[in-house]
């Protein structure tokens, strides 16, 4: 059994801790000649394969490295635009490494918040009474387990509620905070 990653989300849906433990990455490096048989497009600051999947390069894979050097989003290691570089026949033959894009920190934050909402909706759509949120989610490549701690619940303090109501009543009677003041 391999644990891929751990996320800890607070009760507001914000990611407070994240760990990547084991990531089996399907990557393929191949040498290409001009013109490229794949259609590449820019998406979310990454260069992705849009069409033309072959060998082990799938649609949705990102350009990870060119000629052995890791790319930096849409730019090569020496600051040129990847799409521009690959559009120029003078740069060929070129060796490109493709693979599933790794998640940026920002994307991890967004996914954690997304799951937080999905967890709540899972409980709302329940056909049975008293259901919790999503405890386990299964796909064909991974399983997601979720455990919600008791301290998620907001702390209720009765004395505070009572005293606050009293204070408001007193203030209303004294006319300090009533309507028209």
């Amino acid at each position: 059994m391999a644990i891929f990653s751990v996320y800890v989300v607070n009760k507001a849906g914000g990611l407070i801790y994240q760990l990547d433990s084991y990531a089996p990455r399907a990557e393929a490096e191949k040498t290409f000649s001009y013109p490229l048989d794949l259609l590449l497009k820019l998406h979310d600051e990454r260069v992705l394969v849009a069409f033309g999947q072959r060998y082990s390069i799938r649609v949705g894979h990102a350009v990870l490295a060119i000629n052995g050097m890791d790319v930096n989003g849409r730019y090569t290691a020496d600051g040129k635009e990847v799409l521009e570089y690959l559009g120029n026949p003078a740069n060929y033959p070129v060796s490109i490494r493709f693979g599933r894009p790794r998640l940026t920190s920002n994307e991890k934050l967004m996914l954690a918040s997304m799951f937080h909402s999905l967890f709540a909706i899972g409980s709302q759509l329940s056909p049975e009474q008293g259901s919790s949120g999503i405890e386990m989610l299964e796909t064909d490549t991974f399983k997601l387990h979720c455990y919600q701690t008791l301290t998620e619940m907001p702390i209720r303090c009765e004395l505070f509620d009572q005293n606050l109501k009293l204070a408001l009543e007193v203030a209303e009677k004294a006319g300090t905070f009533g309507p028209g003041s």
Partner: protein
Amino acid sequence: MTVHNLYLFDRNGVCLHYSEWHRKKQAGIPKEEYKLMYGMLFSIRSFVSKMSPLDMKDGFLAFQTSRYKLHYYETPTGIKVVMNTDLGVGPIRDVLHHIYSALYVELVVKNPLCPLGQTVQSELFRSRLDSYVRSLPFFSARAG
């Protein structure tokens, strides 16, 4: 072991069919619930495709909470079959596939009098689906 309810959606989010057998809790107005269910599934698919460490073939299969399990099956044409059961039920992808191919395709798609893209009116489809679900080994007439 039992089946709570079943939803059928098309690629545009239109709820083609809804049946229930054992349901203790309503989630508000049915129309709003269908939209919420479709929206949740859409978001789960997007979530799962980003999270997955490897390339996926079938994608999202099921999730479970403390009280129910939601099973999901989607065809390449975007038809989504969603079934809520209790926790004792294992993988039922073949059941959902049967509902699609032997019931929906045979009785609705191949019927020239059934317009696609809207709620299925066919009484034959509804009754065949009901008999099929009731005949499943994990369906018991008494819930729980």
